[in-house]
């Protein structure tokens, strides 16, 4: 066994730096089998190399060993293709800590492309996940999907075509998502039930919703403390192609940012443009068009609280909201040729938490907030900044531990 491993390692190293890459797209059976074996028999410290070429798999790959690095030769060169996959709910499933994956692409998986379930110290660097035929309901749900992780870095990555979220960080702690691009997903980047996340220097464009910060019920960890800054969140107007019943199926096309039921969210220094429903939507769980909105577990907090929006550059957007109710409000308040303000809020608050510390604070050169009076079926929508001209203490920078 040991001898086999060493031979395999040598084989991989050789194929990584010497041999001709497969350029024809033909299945390179020997590499695929040796790659799978390398994942199955990995020891901590292993660096598993993926040479340039399209490597085809018809069933999932699984890694369960801590301390492993998977390294390709570039997100447009080393491609794990799962077109025609017949088994497994993911492309690559990782149940491990101290994991690094870099310079590689995962394409056309039946389900999620890269799922990392429970682990500490995770790096996803210059990884592309893509459904290559473009947006479609049949595409897998998530591109880059760490869940229940801690100390997680996603950088320089690209996520395209997910039928749920391109980059989806769930139930995690201490997370940085930066320098990445999310395009043609239902949700570009989604931070859900996560505590302490920094999302910056990303581009979210041509999604249904650009960047989402959500809390869902029935999960042990309620999320809070996310900073979204210095991103370009533009033209997220792709019609929603999520399957009904999922959380993101309720996201209107043309949503730049959506905050739902999450607390302590700081949004600053972003370019947020031309998102036709609204550049920023803020809602409670009640009006998120989710199922189960009337019966919630007592411990779940459905209200977005302590939201701080400042120093963003807004332009365009709000001229064609993807909801009849919002469209009526637009025409009624702003005229046929008018547009909704940059920030649209459902106005539903916890009656026990009306103190300024829980407010939505907007300190952003003239950006307006529209309260659509969601609790009363939009009877009295109003732009009234009086409760929103305030500031909150800024959240701390996320310092990731050395990985």
């Amino acid at each position, binding site marked *: 066994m040991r001898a086999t491993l060493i031979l395999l390692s040598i084989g991989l190293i050789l194929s990584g730096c010497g041999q001709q890459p497969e350029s024809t797209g033909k299945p390179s059976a020997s590499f695929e089998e040796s790659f799978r074996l390398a994942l*199955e028999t990995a020891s901590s410290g292993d660096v598993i190399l993926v040479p340039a070429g399209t490597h085809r798999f018809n*069933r999932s790959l699984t890694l369960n060993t801590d301390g492993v690095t998977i390294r390709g030769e570039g997100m447009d060169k080393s491609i794990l293709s799962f077109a025609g996959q017949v088994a497994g709910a993911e492309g690559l499933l990782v149940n491990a800590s101290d994991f690094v994956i870099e310079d590689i692409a995962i394409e056309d998986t039946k389900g*999620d492309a890269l799922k990392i379930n429970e682990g500490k110290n995770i790096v996803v660097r210059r990884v592309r996940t893509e459904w290559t035929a473009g947006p479609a309901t049949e595409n897998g749900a998530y591109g880059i999907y760490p869940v229940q992780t801690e100390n997680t870095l996603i950088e320089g990555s690209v996520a395209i075509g997910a039928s749920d979220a391109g980059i989806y960080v*769930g139930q995690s702690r201490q997370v940085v998502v930066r320098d990445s691009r999310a395009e043609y997903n239902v949700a570009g980047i989604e931070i859900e039930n996560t505590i302490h996340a920094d999302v910056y220097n990303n581009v979210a464009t041509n999604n249904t919703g650009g960047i989402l910060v959500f809390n869902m019920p029935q999960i*042990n960890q309620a999320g809070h403390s996310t900073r979204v800054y210095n991103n370009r969140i533009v033209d997220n107007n792709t019609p929603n192609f999520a399957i009904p*019943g999922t959380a993101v199926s309720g996201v209107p096309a043309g949503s730049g940012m959506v905050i739902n039921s999450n607390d302590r969210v700081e949004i600053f220094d972003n370019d947020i443009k031309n998102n036709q429903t609204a550049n920023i939507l803020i809602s409670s769980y009640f009006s998120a068009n989710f199922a*189960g909105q009337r019966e919630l577990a007592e411990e779940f907090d459905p209200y977005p609280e302590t939201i701080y929006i400042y120093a963003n550059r807004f332009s365009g957007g709000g001229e064609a909201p993807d909801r009849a109710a919002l469209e009526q409000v637009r025409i009624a308040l702003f005229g046929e040729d008018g547009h909704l303000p940059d920030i649209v809020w459902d106005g539903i608050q916890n009656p026990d938490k009306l103190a300024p510390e829980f407010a939505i604070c907007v300190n952003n050169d003239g950006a307006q907030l529209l309260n659509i009076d969601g609790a009363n079926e939009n009877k009295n929508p109003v732009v009234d900044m009086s409760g929103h001209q305030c500031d909150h203490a800024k959240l701390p920078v996320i310092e990731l531990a050395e990985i």
Partner: protein
Amino acid sequence: MFRNTLIALLLGVLAGCGQPVSFFDAQHYPAKLSDWGIVTRSGNRLVLGQDVDTYDLNTPLFSDYAGKLRTLWIPPGESAVFDADKTLELPVGTILSKTFFYDQHNGQLIRSDQFSGNPADLDLDRTLIIETRLLVHQPHGWDALPYVWDGADAVLKITGDLQTFEFKQTDSSIVLNYQVPSKNECAGCHATDHTSGENQPIGMKARHLNRPHPLEATNQLDRLSQRGLIRLPAGDLPANARWSDAQLHVGDRDVGDWEVSDRDVAHRARSYLDINCGHCHNPRGAADTSGLMLDIASTGPAANRRAMGVCKPPIASGGGSGGNLYSIVPGKPAQSILSYRMRTTDPADRMPEIGRTLVDAEGVAVVDAWLAGMSGECL
């Protein structure tokens, strides 16, 4: 004295003519299954090794209608510790095996899940054995080893395998993409505590084993006790539903014919979800991310109904919602994600994620009957 004689007699029966079992440490796993001596092929028969006992489960995991032969070998002189809920504490050195096979008819595989559990009933001239999975209890924990049959022996294949067959259903045949799980995929189910990541046997729980032995009328737990391998507490022991009874009553999906009480229906459905889903959908399992708990402790009358899916919206189901809003809509299986996930064969959406490519018609019928009988509504 009498007791000793009885044990000797039983051991004599067990020993049969099998070869002695060999135990290997993790650095020296043999490439061939026959080296273990647990299950070997002799002509058109499968032969169990010395002191290797067969066993069966009340409600088993559905595995695409494959027949399954399960065996247990505990090293001589060792014994197990009983637990009413958790996996029996089996000694280091224990080896469990499960051999998967299908009967063949005109070159097609046919349904074989009603296998008696007696290896003597297997005729390899008409039965195709595909794989044997071992769970080996090492000092560091349980190792999972997939062996794939090729002629007279099976070969260790850490990476698993994907084999394609024609499978005959009632009036048609379909392609069966049979998946032999890789070592890591074995952990996908057997790491029932996903945080620790350590493999555990799943079937080796009192409630699964509490039933007659496949070769004789003795209760399997009593048999372990009689062999001196376990000490049982006094009183009734938990038991999941006997799936063969449930199947008998389901007939051909006609749930209306059931002449059973609601309590029996619930017990059968909960037993089914327990063994098919509970290894991930438990409070420490890989699927705790979903907030949906389907192990038997989490689906009882006192359970948090939302946590077991009643009016619970999905978290990260993707297409797995099937367009439905809740895991369980009381009284409405067709609107319940739980049922959809059992009825779909799409690899991205079907449940369990590993080990099922066909629809388990009886499983769906039993779970749907349970959902249909639930009262309440989702507002």
